[in-house]
C-alpha cells in the first residue's frame, strides 16, 4: 500500500448520528478536527423510535440554553411513580416548579431532536454522511498492537486516526472490535413503545400541566403481568409516549410475548383513561441494555472508542430510565480524550485511555456506581407483584368506609401485611437492597 493511500481522510470518523455521535462530532469539530459523521438512516433521527425523557443538564453545558432553541416537547415538572395491581394503583406524585428551572428533564421526539443535534454538528464543520451503512472496521497491525484505522462501507473505505462507535445498543462496531461480547439475556430488556396522538389541551387537562410543562409516569407491578420491568408514560407536545420495558429472560420464562404485555398495559384501567380517544401514530420495539455499571464494557481500543448506548451506558433505577444524558456525558468525555490523544500524537489504546479517565471522573460513571446494585435489585420478582398488592391493600383499608371502626394506620398496614404473601425478612432484605441500590 502506498503512503498516500494510508493517509487518513479525516481526523475522526463517528459512526451513528444519535445524541452520543452528534455531540462527540460537534465537540471535536469545535476543537478544529476534521470529522465525518456517518449515519445509516437517510437523515439523522430517521432510524429512531419515538423519543424519551432527556435529563438535560449535561446538554445545557454543551449548548447553553438548548431548551429554548432545540425541538423539545415539554419540560417535565411532574414525576409520578405508580404501583399497579390488577384493579388498583398507588402513586407517589411529585410536582415541583423547581424542576423546571434550570431545565432538569424535557421530553424529546428523536426524529426532530437528533436532526437538530446533527445540524449543530454540521454547522460546526462536521461532514454529515447519511444513508451509509458501515460494513466493517479497517484494522491494521500497529507498533502497539492491532489498531482500528477506518471503516469500509460497500466498495469504499475511509480512513481516520480515530473511529468513534456511536452505533447504539446492538453496537456492531464494538462487538467486531472485540470490546463487547453478546451480553447475557438478563442484562437485556425489550422495550415496546407507542406514540398516541391527542390534542394538547386534552393532554394538559388529563395530566394537570400547563403551557410547555409535562409529566412523566413510571409504573411498576401488574402493568407488566408480573414480568420484571416497568411501564412509562410521558407527555409530548401533542402526543403521549407510552411503553413497557421488559427483562428479556423473565419474558421468556413467563412464556409471554412483548406485544401481549404491551396490549395488557394499554388496556389497564389505570392507564386507559389517559389514552382514551387517542390515535396510535407510531409503534415500535427496541432492545435496551439495562445492566448499569455491569454492562459498561471496555470503551477504548487502539484507534477506536465507544460512546453512548453502544458502550452499555443506561441506568434503570426503577424510578427513572436514563440513556440520552449518559450518552451525551460520554460524548463530552470522549471528545476531550480524543482531542488529547490526537494532540499527543498517540491514538493507541494507551493514548485514548484519556477518554476512560474523563468518563470515570464524570457524572456518568459516578451515577453508574451509585445505581450499581439497581439492576439486580430490580431483578427481585417481588418488586413486580406483591409490593403493589400490599400498598393497594393498605390504602384500600384506609379509604374504604365500610362501616367497620377505623383503625390506626399502623394497624391497617400490619394487617395488610399479614394477608400479603410477603415475609418480613424479604421486605427487610428488599428494603435494604433498595436503599443501597437507589
Amino acid at each position, binding site marked *: 500500500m502506498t503512503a498516500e493511500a494510508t493517509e487518513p*481522510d479525516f481526523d475522526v470518523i463517528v459512526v451513528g448520528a444519535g445524541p452520543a455521535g452528534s455531540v462527540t462530532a460537534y465537540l471535536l469539530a469545535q476543537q478544529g478536527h476534521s470529522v*465525518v459523521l*456517518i449515519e445509516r438512516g*437517510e*437523515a439523522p*433521527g*430517521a432510524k429512531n423510535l419515538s423519543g424519551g425523557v432527556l435529563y438535560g443538564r449535561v446538554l445545557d453545558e454543551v449548548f447553553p440554553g438548548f431548551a429554548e432553541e432545540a425541538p423539545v416537547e415539554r419540560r417535565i415538572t411532574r414525576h409520578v411513580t405508580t404501583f399497579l395491581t390488577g384493579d388498583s394503583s398507588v402513586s407517589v406524585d411529585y410536582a415541583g416548579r423547581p424542576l423546571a428551572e434550570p431545565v432538569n428533564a424535557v421530553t424529546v421526539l428523536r*426524529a426532530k431532536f437528533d*436532526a437538530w443535534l446533527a445540524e449543530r454538528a*454540521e454547522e460546526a464543520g462536521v*461532514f*454529515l*454522511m*447519511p*444513508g*451509509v451503512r458501515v460494513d466493517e472496521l479497517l484494522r491494521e497491525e500497529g507498533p502497539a498492537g492491532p489498531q482500528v484505522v477506518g471503516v469500509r*462501507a*460497500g*466498495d*469504499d*473505505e*475511509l480512513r481516520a486516526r480515530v473511529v468513534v462507535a456511536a452505533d447504539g445498543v446492538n453496537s456492531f462496531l464494538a462487538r467486531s472490535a472485540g470490546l463487547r461480547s453478546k451480553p447475557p439475556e438478563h442484562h437485556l430488556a425489550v422495550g415496546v413503545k407507542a406514540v398516541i396522538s391527542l390534542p394538547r389541551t386534552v393532554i394538559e387537562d388529563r395530566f394537570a400541566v400547563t403551557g410547555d410543562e409535562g409529566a412523566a409516569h413510571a409504573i411498576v407491578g401488574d402493568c407488566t403481568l408480573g414480568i420484571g420491568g416497568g411501564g412509562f408514560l410521558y407527555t409530548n407536545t401533542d402526543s403521549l409516549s407510552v411503553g413497557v420495558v421488559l427483562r428479556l429472560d423473565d419474558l421468556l420464562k413467563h412464556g409471554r410475548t412483548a406485544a401481549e404485555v404491551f396490549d395488557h398495559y394499554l388496556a389497564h384501567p389505570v392507564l386507559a383513561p389517559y389514552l382514551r380517544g387517542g*390515535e396510535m*401514530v407510531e409503534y415500535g420495539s427496541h432492545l435496551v441494555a439495562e445492566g448499569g455499571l455491569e454492562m459498561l464494557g471496555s470503551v477504548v481500543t487502539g484507534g477506536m472508542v465507544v460512546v453512548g448506548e453502544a458502550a452499555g451506558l443506561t441506568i434503570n433505577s426503577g424510578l427513572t430510565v436514563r440513556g440520552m444524558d449518559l450518552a451525551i456525558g460520554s460524548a463530552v468525555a470522549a471528545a476531550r480524550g480524543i482531542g488529547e490523544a490526537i494532540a499527543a500524537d498517540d491514538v493507541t489504546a494507551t493514548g485514548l485511555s484519556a477518554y476512560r479517565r474523563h468518563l470515570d471522573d464524570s457524572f456518568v460513571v459516578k451515577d453508574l456506581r451509585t445505581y450499581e446494585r439497581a439492576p439486580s435489585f430490580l431483578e427481585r420478582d417481588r418488586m413486580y407483584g406483591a409490593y403493589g398488592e400490599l400498598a393497594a391493600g393498605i390504602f384500600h383499608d384506609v379509604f374504604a368506609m365500610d362501616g367497620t371502626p377505623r383503625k390506626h394506620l399502623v394497624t391497617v398496614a400490619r394487617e395488610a401485611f399479614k394477608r400479603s404473601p410477603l415475609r418480613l425478612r424479604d421486605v427487610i432484605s428488599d428494603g435494604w437492597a433498595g436503599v443501597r441500590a437507589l
Partner: protein
Amino acid sequence: MKIVVAYKWAPNPQDAVVATTGEVDLSRAKPAVSEYDPVAFELARRLADATGGEVVGLTVGGPSIDTPLSRKAALSRGLDRLVVVADAELEDADGTRIATVLAAAVRAIGDVDLVLAGDSSIDVAQGQVPLTLAGVLGWLGLAAVSAVTAADGGLVVERSLPGGTTVVAVPTPAVLAATADAVVPRVAGMKDILGAAKKPVEVLDLAALDVPAPGATLATLATAKPAGGERTATIFDGSSPAGAAAQLVGALRQAGAL
C-alpha cells in the same frame, strides 16, 4: 451532450403516516430526493458517459430545498453540478408554476440538449410537470420513457405504454419523463458523498429569471381516496394447511381468478 435532470426535493414516503381512514399524512416526513427521480439521474449519467456529456441537476421550490443535506443527496448520485432556485414564493407552487420556473432555469443554464425527469413526484404524483415544461420550452416532450440511447444527431427512446412498447427516434432538444423502473439507480457510496461536497452549486435568483407571472391558481374543492376493490374477506380454516390451500384454490377457481 448537455443533460439537465429536473428533480424534486420531496417528503420521504418511508416516513408517511397512514391514518386509520386510509389518508396519507406526509407532513412529518423528512425530505429526500423524490422517490422516482434517481432513475432520471441514472439514465442521464449513463447517457452522458456514453456521449461524453455533462449532467446538471436542477431543482426548484421553497427555501427548505437548499440545505447541505439536500445538495449532497443529489450531487452524490452522478451529477456533475447543481442548479437551485429556492424561493419562499415557490413554497406551495402548483405544477404549472414549477414548470415555468424550471423552463426559465433551463434557458438560463443554456445550450441544453435534453431534460430528463422522473414520471411524477412522490407527494403530488400528477405527472404533469415534465410535459408542461416541454410545452413552455416549445420542445418535444415524451412521457413513459423506459430507455434512452444516443443516436446520430438525436436520441433513440423506448416508451412503455399500456398497449406495448414503441421505439422512436427523437431529435433534440427534448424533455423525457422516465418510468420508475427504467433502470436501477445507483446507491451513493461514501466516496460519492465526499465527492458531492466538492461539486459546484449555482443558486439562481427567482427574481432574475425570466418567468411569466403565475396565471390562474387552482382551488381544490374536494378530495377522496380511490375506491378500494371489492374484497370478499373470506377466512379459511387454517388448522389443516393442505385443507386450507385446497379451499383457497377452489375459491379462486370459482371467482375465475385461476
